[in-house]
């Protein structure tokens, strides 16, 4: 009897399965399609002229030399170096802050903890961009415009990251910390010798999410830098100006776009788990 029921259920779910797969594939295709067009364009020879109204599914003669050309023309390496400095610098420094605050708020008892938690919540809810003008003025008054410091320092207390760490702290047993107390370990010893090694998964998640976020950010860099030598890769993209004229520009622009997107896609392919974790932890509190 139960077998019969199971069979029926299996049969019923087969047909819709195919419909669902087709529908989802269409959506996935629509999402990839514009990027595929860019990949094809980026591989066309520089003197290529497209026929009007024709979609090129494949380059007429694939060449990677456009990438070298685009990198040189847009000065993309400079952008890569700047983006790496900012992304790594920000992520590493803020990871220390996030771990420290997450540990103290998540694991310690002290007066005023509720107030601090409330402040964290308010900060997360308040749109940070509101403070763009005043922070821009502050950075400018401090003489920090067009420095790496301006790009890295203002956002170091990452509230979303703090919540990520706080929720992770539940998985560190209090007994471990208590036994360290009995051994007479100081707070810093506990933080770096016990909490840090045990928190590696959440630090990895934090690191990957924020590295990508920094790599992709353009607004704050646009506010505080005007010197092309300090432009992050996203700003380099917006600064793309006409070079050859005509379709050759489109080819170079496509190459620059794909070049900027590829590192992020590679990170995604390697660390999908972390992206989903970051979402579900901050999202499902």
């Amino acid at each position, binding site marked *: 009897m139960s077998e019969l029921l199971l069979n029926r259920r299996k049969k019923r779910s087969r047909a819709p*399965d195919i419909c669902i797969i087709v529908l989802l594939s269409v959506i996935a295709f629509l999402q990839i399609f514009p990027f595929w067009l860019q990949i094809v364009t980026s591989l066309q020879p520089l003197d290529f002229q497209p026929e009007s109204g024709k979609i090129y599914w494949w380059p007429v003669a694939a060449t990677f030399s456009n990438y070298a050309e685009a990198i040189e023309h847009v000065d993309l390496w400079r952008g890569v170096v700047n983006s790496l400095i900012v992304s790594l610098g920000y992520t590493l420094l803020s990871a220390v802050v996030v771990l420290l605050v997450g540990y103290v708020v998540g694991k310690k008892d002290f007066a005023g903890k509720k107030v601090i938690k409330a402040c964290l919540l308010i900060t997360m809810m308040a*749109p940070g961009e509101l403070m763009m003008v005043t922070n821009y003025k502050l950075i400018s008054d401090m003489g920090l415009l067009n420095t790496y410091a301006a790009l890295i320092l203002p956002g170091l207390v990452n509230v979303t990251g703090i919540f990520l760490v706080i929720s992770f702290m539940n998985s560190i047993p209090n007994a471990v910390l208590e036994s360290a107390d009995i051994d007479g370990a100081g707070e810093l010893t506990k933080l770096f010798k016990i909490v840090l090694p045990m928190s590696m998964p959440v630090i990895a998640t934090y690191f990957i999410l924020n590295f990508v976020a920094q790599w992709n950010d353009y607004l704050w860099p646009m506010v505080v830098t005007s010197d092309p030598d300090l432009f992050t890769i996203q700003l380099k993209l917006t600064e793309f100006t006409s070079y050859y004229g005509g379709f050759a520009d489109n080819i170079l622009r496509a190459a620059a776009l794909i070049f900027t997107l590829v590192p992020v896609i590679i990170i995604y392919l390697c660390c999908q788990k972390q992206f989903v974790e970051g979402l579900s932890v901050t999202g499902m509190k």
Partner: protein
Amino acid sequence: MKSVKGKRLIGRKARRNITAYLMLSLPIIWWGVFFLFAFIRAIYFSFTDLRFDESQISEYGFQNYVRLFSDETFGKAFANTMIWTVVMTLANNVIGLLVAFLIFRLTKGSKIFLALLFWPTLVSAVIGSEITKIIFNPGDSGVLNSIIIAMGGNPLGWYNDPNIALFTLMILPTLLGFSTQMMIYYVAFMGVPKSYVEAARLETKSNFKILWHVYVPLIKSALTYNLLISIVGNMKIMAPMQLVSVDGAGGPFDSTVTIMLYLYNKGITGYEMGYACAIGVIMLIVILILGVVQMKFTGKGEDYE
């Protein structure tokens, strides 16, 4: 003896507080400077005619707010932001919810589709805008226009046509922007107890009815959270407008100007910081109101016990 013990206890508590605050001191100072101070200063500046130099403030009062009410560009920015927020919140959440449900219903291959539909979350604002510029290029050589011409139609002005510019900017974010919502809905679907669904199956065969009457009420917290982040995120929209519109300021004829973009144009490029801060304060108030209204509608988001 007893009193000594008591004292020691208080001492330990105090010491614990001191260590905690010592450890938190630097982050608190940092937060104080770049959040609290910046926040309070923004409110203060909004009541002044600050341009850039604080020593040159000559007027104090509500004049910025009065000016906002008669500022046509701000009115346009406000309307555009509201239209954008409503349309994009609905689009991203409806598509996200349906796609998540479809993937959830799959017996096989759900992981592949999750991965395949989640990657657009990595596309930066700059890249997305560049793609919009290429596909919806108003010239005859634009990807869509050249197809329209080949099929014998008239090319459209897309983001250069004030009537459809805002709509044009919505297309790519609709197609690519639902991945976060989708993932959160999917995780929520996984948490719904099977017994609820099986009970409902006895009553109806319609998957849509089951989604609407069984799943949706049971994933209220995911729904509330998604709506909140969508509304707050979309209220702050400025990237597609800034990066796609020809003048970078929300043109043509302010058809794509938004509150945040206007704030940027006034505060950062236009050196009207006092006015920009007033725009920011209005924005904060609107977001707070929307947040409260949204909470009232969907409840606090408590799921099944």
